[in-house]
Each structure stands twice: as structure tokens, then as C-alpha cells.
């Protein structure tokens, strides 16, 4: 292989990453708006994250195709929702898949999956009624229709809140509206005081003031994100205010909050497509935030770049490329291709690691905090272990397993992300970095290593089936599976026990036979059983391989299956669609186990010159 080839590869990938960070070329300063920090869902994040997660919940994607030729970014869409709700109401972006939900509104299921708010508007009362009927039913007992009508109801609720984030949605011109409010407030307050004292008061002033107060109270209750940071002197960093609260406060302070005024400008500038004014508003907001909340601002800027980079998506692409290359290198017996694949894999791992660390920095948490991040971490752990194996054996086996697991786990993560913000806040009992960093990380490494052993075993079965396994490779694969299983036993045991100790600290019992605990225990027992059977000579190489594949089923049950049962203290996240995928995975693994019993003779020739 030519010396410069790996360097070219690294440079090419760097260029590819840099190109995705390129600035948007539109008429408005969308990036400036996307970088503005807001507080939503309990944490400070860039507006861009609000846009992406909201569009993901409503539309299923992070961008919106508005015509055959034009696609808008999540941030462009959100700005339209907040500033021009009339236009946004007419856009078809709400994804509805369930035929019964469509039928409720007299709509037929066609190829069109997306609907506009205007289409749904006549049926809102009925949707609300159905949602109220479905809500008291426990999530595990709900019918498909009930689940979906509740989903739609929550989507509409979110959309409504987004529209009423910066202004009450029917506002014709926000700056002049709030200017009138500011001007009339003193007289209005005077009238209120006179009335309370039982004196004569100006009914017109009083009426106008009441109208504004009602209007902004509504805004303060519906507003989705808090946009006004606490003043620099504040001791409570999370005491943000939303637009409505900011407007109501004018009564006490006597003047309009400058952030409120700037956001009003932003809305008006967007409405009039006035780029200069828009840019001015974002720049001024930014300099205010830099003074008031410098740390949050640098963090949200980082998160903005992280959103743009989409590191996990890029790693996925590279994992697939590496996988294909290794397969090809086996077919044509090329050591050079194998090396390139190794470098690709290394680049993918670097990006994957960057994404993982970036999330830790943004959240200020250990790597695993929910199901989504566990998928990312399982993949990461498996890829690291697989790369170590590849470094030792240099036969492409560790690498292909790493690439497969890296891709599959990131795919799982990608599908789990559809629920919205993947960095949501942690419920009380989970709010402990100590146990998240120990128990959760170790038990997740246990999943990763058990999967790695299982996927190495799959390589064994497939290569043997295609007569591409010689005796030496078979032996080395058997050794890898055994070694990784030893690690898996250690990790899953220690992780499970640490979980027990956490439970003892927080619930008062070391072990409560809760489904999640049982799932972890089954992995430990299965790994122990496999190792004992091997030590006792009850199974040999093939037996070990078959049992390692079954380990995949055991681990997937523990990881996802128990969450579908919906009982016990641990079931925080219930997922139903994933059930079919889990069943499919289990079936595929059973099929592979059966395939292992088809005894193909071992290959005479070594299949690859690269095999050691």
C-alpha cells in the first residue's frame, strides 16, 4: 500500500466534516438566530436544538421539504412557526401514519403522509376528546389507536406552544403591539389602583390594561421556551423567563425588558424579510447574552456546532464504508484494502468518540444517561474492543465486527432519537453522576462486550458456511470469543452488582427482582454458564460459538426487552414499535445458530494473506 494513501483518506474525511459546517446562504441570518441560547425542557440549549428536536417530533426529520426543489432547515421552519404562524399553518409537515387516526378526521390513507395544521383544525375538538379518553389508560394497555391519538394530541400541543413562544400567534405586528402596551401600562396601573381603592377610574385605560394582562398571561402559560436569561447578578442560573413573563414584568419595572424588545424586532424583521434588521437583532441579543451568561453562551455555541456536524451520522457512513471494504478485501485477498479499511474505521471511531465526549461536555454528565446514549456507548465500547482485537490479530475479523456493531448501534440510536431531545433532564433518582459513571458505564460495557463476542461468533458461522474459514482462523476466532466472553462476564457482573449497591443506597434493597435487574442477571448467568460449560469440556469450539450467538439474544432482551414489559421501578422508557425489530433480531440470531450446525468442512487454503 502506498504510504500517502492513509493520509489522503484522513484529509478527505476532514474536508468532508468541514464542508458540513459551512454557513447557510439564505437571505436571513438563520445561523445567528439558531445560536441564541434558550431554556427549554429544563436545560439551556441553542434555539437550533429546539428547532431540530421539535421538527423531529412533528415531522420525523430534521429538515422540511417544502417543494420538490426546496428544503428548509429546522431553524428556518421554527422561525416561520414563531413569526409567521399563518404561513406555517398551511404547510404540510405533521406526520400521521395511523389509518384509524386519519379515519377519525375523514381522511383516507394515501401516499401523502404529511398534513397541515389547517387540515386538522376542524377536528381539533374531536382529537382532544379522544385523547382525554385514552389518557387515563396505562401506557402498556393502550390500543394502537389510543397511542397514536395521544401522540397526535401531544404533537398539536407542542406546535401550539411553539407558535406562542415569542408572540401571541394572532399578533399582527409585535413591536407596535408592545409599544402600545408599554405606553398604556402606567395609565392602566393607575386605573387598577383607583378601582381597588373604590375611587373613580378610567374604564378605557382599565379595559385596555386588562386585555393586555390576559394576553400576556396566556403567552406566559403557553410559551414553549424561556428566552430571557437571568440578569448577570442573579444567583440562580436557571431562573429564566419566557416572553409572556418578561412582558408582564414591565408592570413592576416600569420599562420594557431589552431582550423582549429585541425578540420583537426579530419577529418583525423575519415577517418583513428585512435582513439588516434581523441581523441587527441577533447580533444585539448575542452581545447581551455574552455579558449576562458567557459560560452558557459558549456551551450553546458548541452544541450548535455539534448539531451541524452530526458526528454519529458521519460515523455511520464510515462504518458502512469500512465494512464493505473489509468484505471486499477478503474476496480479492488484498492486504492493502484491509489497511485502508482499518484507517477508515479509525476515523469513524475518532468521530464517534468526539460525539460521545461532546455530549458529555454539553450535558455535564457521564456518557450514558438514557436509552439513546446507551446505544451510542455500547457501539463505542464494542468498536474499541474490536479494534484492539484487530490490532492483535490483523485478519480483518475484529475490524468487520467493530464496523457492523458500530453501524447497528448507531442505527438503533438514530431511531431512538425520534422522541425529541436526547439530552433530556434526569429524573430525581438518576440525578447522580457517581452512579451513572460507575454502574451504568460498566453494565453498558458488559452489553458491548457480550455483543462483540456474539458478533465475532457470527463471523465464524458465516465464514464457515461460505467455506472461507481455515483451521487457524477458526481457532483464533474461538480464542477471541472466549477472551471477550471473559471480559463480558467481568463487566456484566461488576456492573450488575454496582447497580445492586445503588439500589441499596436509594431504595433500601440490594436486589428486588425488578425486570431490569433480572435482565442484567440473566446476562451474568448466561456468560457464567457458557464459561463453565467450556471449562467442563461440555462444549467445544462450535458449542462456544453457538452459545455466544445466543448471548446476543440474551443481551438484546436485557437491553430493550425488559423496557417493553412496563413493570417495576426501572421502566422509565416504554417503547412499542421497537418490539418488532427486537423479535426480528431474535429470529435472525436463532437462524444463525441453526446455520452453525450445518457442518461445512474447514477451508484447506488460508482465505486471506492478511490472516495471522
Amino acid at each position, binding site marked *: 500500500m502506498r504510504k500517502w494513501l492513509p493520509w489522503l483518506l484522513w484529509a478527505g474525511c476532514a474536508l468532508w466534516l468541514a464542508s458540513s459546517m459551512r454557513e447557510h446562504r439564505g437571505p436571513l441570518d438563520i445561523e445567528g438566530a439558531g445560536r441564541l441560547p434558550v431554556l427549554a425542557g429544563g436545560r439551556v440549549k441553542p434555539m437550533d436544538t429546539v428547532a431540530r428536536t421539535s421538527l423531529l417530533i412533528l415531522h420525523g426529520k430534521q429538515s422540511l421539504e417544502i417543494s420538490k426543489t426546496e428544503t428548509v432547515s429546522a431553524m428556518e421552519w421554527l422561525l416561520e412557526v414563531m413569526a409567521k404562524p399563518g404561513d406555517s399553518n398551511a404547510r404540510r409537515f405533521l406526520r400521521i401514519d395511523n389509518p384509524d387516526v386519519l379515519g377519525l378526521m375523514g381522511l383516507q390513507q394515501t401516499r401523502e403522509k404529511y398534513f397541515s395544521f389547517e387540515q386538522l383544525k376542524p377536528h381539533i375538538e374531536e382529537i382532544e376528546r379522544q385523547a382525554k379518553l385514552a389518557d387515563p389508560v396505562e401506557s402498556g394497555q393502550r390500543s394502537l389507536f389510543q397511542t397514536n391519538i395521544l401522540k397526535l394530541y401531544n404533537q398539536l400541543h407542542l406546535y401550539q406552544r411553539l407558535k406562542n413562544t415569542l408572540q401571541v400567534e394572532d399578533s399582527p405586528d409585535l413591536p407596535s403591539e408592545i409599544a402600545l402596551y408599554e405606553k398604556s401600562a402606567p395609565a392602566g396601573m393607575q386605573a387598577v389602583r383607583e378601582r381597588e381603592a373604590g375611587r373613580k377610574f378610567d374604564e378605557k385605560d382599565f379595559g385596555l390594561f386588562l386585555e393586555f394582562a390576559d394576553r400576556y398571561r396566556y403567552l406566559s402559560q403557553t410559551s414553549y421556551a424561556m428566552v430571557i436569561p437571568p440578569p448577570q447578578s442573579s444567583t440562580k442560573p436557571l431562573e429564566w423567563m419566557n416572553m409572556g413573563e418578561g412582558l408582564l414584568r414591565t408592570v413592576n419595572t416600569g420599562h420594557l425588558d431589552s431582550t423582549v424588545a429585541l425578540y420583537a424586532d426579530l419577529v418583525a424583521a423575519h415577517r418583513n424579510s428585512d435582513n439588516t434588521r434581523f441581523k441587527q437583532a441577533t447580533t444585539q441579543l448575542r452581545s447581551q447574552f455574552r455579558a449576562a451568561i458567557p459560560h452558557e453562551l459558549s456551551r450553546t455555541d458548541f452544541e450548535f456546532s455539534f448539531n451541524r456536524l452530526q458526528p454519529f451520522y458521519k460515523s455511520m457512513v464510515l462504518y458502512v464504508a469500512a465494512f464493505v471494504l473489509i468484505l471486499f478485501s477478503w474476496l480479492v485477498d488484498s492486504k492493502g484494502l484491509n489497511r485502508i479499511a482499518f484507517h477508515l474505521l479509525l476515523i469513524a471511531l475518532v468521530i464517534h468518540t468526539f460525539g460521545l465526549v461532546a455530549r458529555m461536555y454539553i450535558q455535564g454528565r457521564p456518557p450514558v444517561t438514557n436509552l439513546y446514549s446507551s446505544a451510542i456507548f455500547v457501539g463505542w465500547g464494542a468498536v474499541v474492543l474490536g479494534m484492539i482485537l484487530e490490532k492483535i490479530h490483523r485478519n480483518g475479523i475484529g475490524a468487520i465486527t467493530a464496523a457492523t456493531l458500530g453501524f447497528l448501534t448507531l442505527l438503533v440510536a438514530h431511531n431512538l432519537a425520534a422522541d425529541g431531545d436526547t439530552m433530556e*433532564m434526569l429524573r430525581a433518582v438518576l440525578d447522580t453522576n457517581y452512579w451513572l459513571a460507575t454502574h451504568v458505564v460498566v453494565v453498558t460495557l458488559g452489553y458491548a462486550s457480550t455483543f462483540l463476542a456474539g458478533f465475532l461468533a457470527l463471523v465464524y458461522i458465516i465464514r464457515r458456511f461460505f467455506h472461507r474459514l481455515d483451521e487457524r482462523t477458526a481457532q483464533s476466532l474461538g480464542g477471541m470469543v472466549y477472551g471477550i466472553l471473559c471480559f463480558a462476564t467481568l463487566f456484566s457482573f461488576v456492573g450488575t452488582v454496582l447497580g445492586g449497591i445503588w439500589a441499596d443506597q436509594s431504595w433500601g434493597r440490594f436486589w428486588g427482582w425488578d425486570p431490569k435487574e433480572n435482565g442484567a442477571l440473566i446476562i451474568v448467568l448466561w456468560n457464567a454458564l457458557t464459561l463453565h460449560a467450556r471449562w467442563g469440556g461440555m462444549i467445544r469450539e462450535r458449542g462456544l460459538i453457538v452459545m455466544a450467538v445466543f448471548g446476543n439474544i440474551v443481551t438484546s432482551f436485557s437491553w430493550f426487552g425488559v423496557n417493553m414489559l412496563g413493570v417495576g421501578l426501572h421502566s422509565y422508557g416504554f417503547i412499542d414499535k421497537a418490539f418488532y425489530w427486537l423479535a426480528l433480531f431474535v429470529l435472525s440470531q436463532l437462524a444463525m445458530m441453526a446455520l452453525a450446525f450445518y457442518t461445512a468442512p474447514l477451508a484447506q487454503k488460508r482465505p486471506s494473506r492478511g490472516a495471522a
Partner: protein
Amino acid sequence: MLIDRIFKIFTSLKLTVICLGFGIVLVFVGTLAQVHMGIHAVQEEYFGAFLVYWKPAGANWKIPVLPGGYLLGIILLLNLLAAHIFRFQWAWKKSGIFLTHLGVLLLIVGGFLSGLLSVESQMPLDMGQTKNYSEDPLAVELVLVDTSHPDYDEVVAIPQHFLGSEKNIQHPRLPFRLNIEKYYPNSKLAMRQPGTDAAAAATQDIGINVQATEIPRATQVNQQDIVSALVEIVTPEKSLGTWLVSSGLGKDQIFSTEGKTWHIGIRQARYYKPYSIQLLNFSHDLYPGTDIPKNFSSRVRVVNPSFKEDREVLIYMNHPLRYAGETYYQASFANNDKTSILQVMRNPGWLTPYFACSLVGLGLLVQFSIHLTSFIRRRKA
């Protein structure tokens, strides 16, 4: 020889593998069964049992289908001991295995001990309230309180299992006999509909208007059985009548005999303590702008006269109070954040899993490091 063969079986690795296999099946089936049976029933019938039975709905026979947790634990324990006594030979390169097995041994024994010795109860406290007892959330007791003495009450508490097993209860401190006419492990209480319902089985007080109907026992973690009973009170001379008592009735019922006033009722079983705990404040913090809970905490005052102790403690998530052999956890809350519910655990063996697990973790690490170094040495050679 038969004894030799038994020895051989008990020292064999095959037995280990079989037990682990049954263990996996048991845990798996037990986990699925929780969906319908609830976690407590599964613990009793699967993990804390010698045999797991299968019983078709409505049948009055059952057949054993799986070894239960206790049986598997005992066999594994014997297997492990026998293997170490009769088969294993000590060698430094097996030191990890020895450590691991010692840890597993301790874990199984500790598990049995904590199953036998640990007592779980709850202490719900209203703001400002002081209590010197905790309550068993799963068991009730029938209490009869003599309130005629001006300085103290005399309480006779009859544990729940007597209600189910005994027809007649004669307690030395009671001047009458209790005749348990009917016992409902779980029940539904409803107002009696005159004319449509059958005649009342109770003849006194609330039972004349309220009737209990038996329902299946609760299976969900957050559900509680409402235990009821029909109790006839019989003095040596005559029957005083039949009372309906239930844990679902808010207050006790009162009757008098031989110049003394008695309260009768069913309440959650109580564990009294030589100290008291008062709830000073309960707080329930949310993340700003959301309804995701961030923290629950109870500020309590512990007063123990015998140790001259009177201090304040904060109990919050993952930070329980360990006091006098018991541990108090922030478990729940009720009543619009005005009531804090503390979980109270008495488990004398709570430290054993910590030791056991350190031993197993260390053992595995040692053993696999030995494997790894020999693997690397072989590769280099």
C-alpha cells in the same frame, strides 16, 4: 457405591451448568410473570420458593414445573462447597477462581440471610407530624385498644396470618373471645343497597350499612390490599355481635363491655422504635419550565431520649439516613406534597453483598489477568 456417585454428582461442573441454566429460565419466566402477577407474588412464588408450580386457572391442583430460587441456591451452594472440598486443588494460577467462588458463596448465603432477616416498612409523615413507629405496607393487624385508662391505652394487636388461619382467638389480655367469621385477604367496600343486597352479615356499627366483597389480591407495585374481616366478639356470658373491620375504613369502631371502652379496627402492622422522627419539611423540586422531578427531600428531626440525641437530618434521593440498625429512604410523597413517605429497612446483613461483590470482582479480574498474560506469553513465544 451410591455415596460415591452422589459425591460425584455434587462435585461435577455439569451440575453447575444445569443449575445456571435453570436459574436463567427461572429468572426469565419470573420476569415475564411479573406483568400479570405483580412483583411481590413473583418473589414469593418463584425466587423465594423451593418449587415453582403450574396451576391452571380455576383448578385446585398444581404441579411443580421448575425449581425455585431457594432450591437452586441450595444446590449451587452444595455444588460449590463439594467441588472445593473434594475436587479442586489449590494452585496460585487458580487463585482468582477461589476468590470468585468465595464471593459467590457469600452472596448466596447473604441473600438467604437478608431474605430471612430483613424487614421492610414505611413511615408516612405529614408536615410537622412525629412518629415512633413504621408500618408494614403489605401486612395488617387487627387491633383492640382499651382506652379506659386515663394515662395510657392498652393495645392488643393480632397479626394478619391469625385472621386467615384461626377461627377462634382467645388472647390473655382480652376479656372476650374473637370469632373470625370471615376473612377477606383483599376486598371492595360498598354501601349496602337496602332491598337488593342480601342481609348484612355484621350486626354492629358500620357493618350494618357497609358490606365487603372479596376480590383478587392486588398485583401492582402501587396497589394495596384492603383486608377485611367479620369478627364476632363473645364474652363468657354472651355474644356482643359481629363487626365488619377493614383496613379500608378510615377509623376504628367503638364498643363497651364490663365498664371498659374498646376500639376495634384493622390497620397496617406497626413496628415500634425506641426513638421518634418528626417531619420538619418536605420539598419536591422540578427542573425549571418542566414537570420533571429534580429532587425529593425530607428534613426530619430524630429524637432518641436514651442516647440524649436530638438532631436534624436531611434525607434525599440516593442519600438515606442510617440510624439504629435501620435505614430511612425518601420513597414517595402524597397529599399535594404535604406528606412525605419514608421507606424503612432493617437488614442486619446489608453489608454482605458489598463484601461478596468485591471478592467476585477481584477474583474475576485476577483470573482473567492470569489468562491474558499467559495468552500474550504464548503469542510472543
